[in-house]
């Protein structure tokens, strides 16, 4: 894959809209052969290599959308570095229990966007058990709310979401998704009080 194809994928992902999925698929297909290389180089199963590869592509997409991929290296080298790290993580997870320790707070958590002092204060409050509980409530939130929140989490703009879900405007989407978050929050709070 050359610089032109890299640029087409990066621009396609950044542009958002309904076309983004196509570029996500193209990115996945571009370096599909990493999976076989992972199996050969790290001696992991094809299932593990394909799961590391999926996670790699998810990371690359997130980084492109967030703007943290600056295009200083080719997508292939960038992706392969992430993929290698994920394969090594898998190997470590198999031989030690480090994986469990690292599960506490995800490395891409929003908490790391806060400055040191504020981060320390918030980190103490983030309990893994609560997150699991939240997952349960999320399932029961209702399809429309779940969908609007997932689109936003996927980096789509409110304008894009308005188009996908037939809302009148981006502002209506913004109000609706905050309402959905409020609804989720209430569900958790009420059920925790009952508990």
């Amino acid at each position, binding site marked *: *894959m050359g610089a032109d194809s890299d640029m087409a994928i990066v621009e396609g992902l950044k542009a958002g809209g309904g076309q983004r999925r196509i570029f996500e*698929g193209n990115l*996945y*297909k*571009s*370096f*599909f*052969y990493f*999976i*076989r290389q992972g199996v050969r180089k790290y001696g992991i199963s094809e*299932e593990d290599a*394909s*799961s590391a*590869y*999926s*996670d790699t*592509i*998810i990371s690359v997409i997130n980084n492109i959308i967030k703007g943290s991929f600056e295009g200083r290296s080719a997508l292939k080298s960038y992706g392969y570095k992430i993929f290698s790290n994920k394969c090594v993580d898998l190997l470590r997870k198999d031989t030690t229990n480090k994986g469990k320790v690292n599960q506490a707070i*995800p490395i*891409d*958590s*929003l*908490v790391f*966007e*806060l*400055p040191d*002092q*504020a981060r320390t*204060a*918030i980190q103490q*409050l*983030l309990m893994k058990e*609560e*997150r*699991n509980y*939240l*997952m*349960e409530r*999320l*399932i*029961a*939130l*209702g*399809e429309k709310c*779940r969908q609007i*929140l*997932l689109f936003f*989490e*996927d980096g789509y703009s409110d304008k894009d979401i308005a188009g996908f879900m037939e809302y009148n405007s981006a502002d209506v989407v913004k*109000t609706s998704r*905050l*309402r959905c*978050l*409020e609804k*989720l*929050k209430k569900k*958790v709070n009420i059920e925790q009080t009952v508990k």
Partner: protein
Amino acid sequence: MNNSLDLIAAYFEGTLAKEEQQSFEERCVDDPAFAEEVAEYIAMREALRTELQKQKRSEFALLYAELSAGAAPDEPHPPLPLKSGISIKKLSFYLAAACVLLVLGWFLWRPAENAKQLSENYIAANFSTLGLNMGGKESADQLQKGIAAFNAKKYEAAEQIFISLSRGAQPEPEAVKNLGITYLVTQKYDAAIEQFERLSTFSLYSNPGLFYQALALMKRGKATDREAAKKILQEVVRRNLAGSKEAKFWLQKL
């Protein structure tokens, strides 16, 4: 609308002014109740991200199945050398014959194979372990026991627990779903289809019953199963039921 939530969302969406950002960060340190709300917000966003990643992994699993079945891209195949003695007429005949065989092969074999491959891939990606419990409080412990047994691959024990929870006057939909999945992974397809059909009659926020029923039919692969699965998938898409995204994709492949 909760003002704190607006403020917290605005901070993480980067729409606050510099001074507001600073005051937000100070409040996280000085105001424990506010810090609690920020932690709740982050936890909610993380739960959403986890769910999103799960969905994306499923989508990529489908792509993986599709690409694994064919040749991997970026691994170029050298062009086949032509024997100089072959005439254009003969070559055209061979090419035409190859095309007929390919088309015939596609109609006879590929759709059925696709259905099986798609279902197997979905099952491998989503049903190697069971997820969270949405059950009622009284039955939650038993349900968790069933899930633990399933995840430990003790399928018989899991089956018994899910059967007991899915019986009676108030059957637990989550148990019905898990019972269907247990039957599916243990290749008891008829029983799986029956449970998923039953699941589809429950009134739930998000009901994957019909989608799973189609999945089980695709996996069972009897003569009429592919057509039946297609009809169900069309219904899933039309009613925008759980699984509609996969259903749309599968319908293009079936």
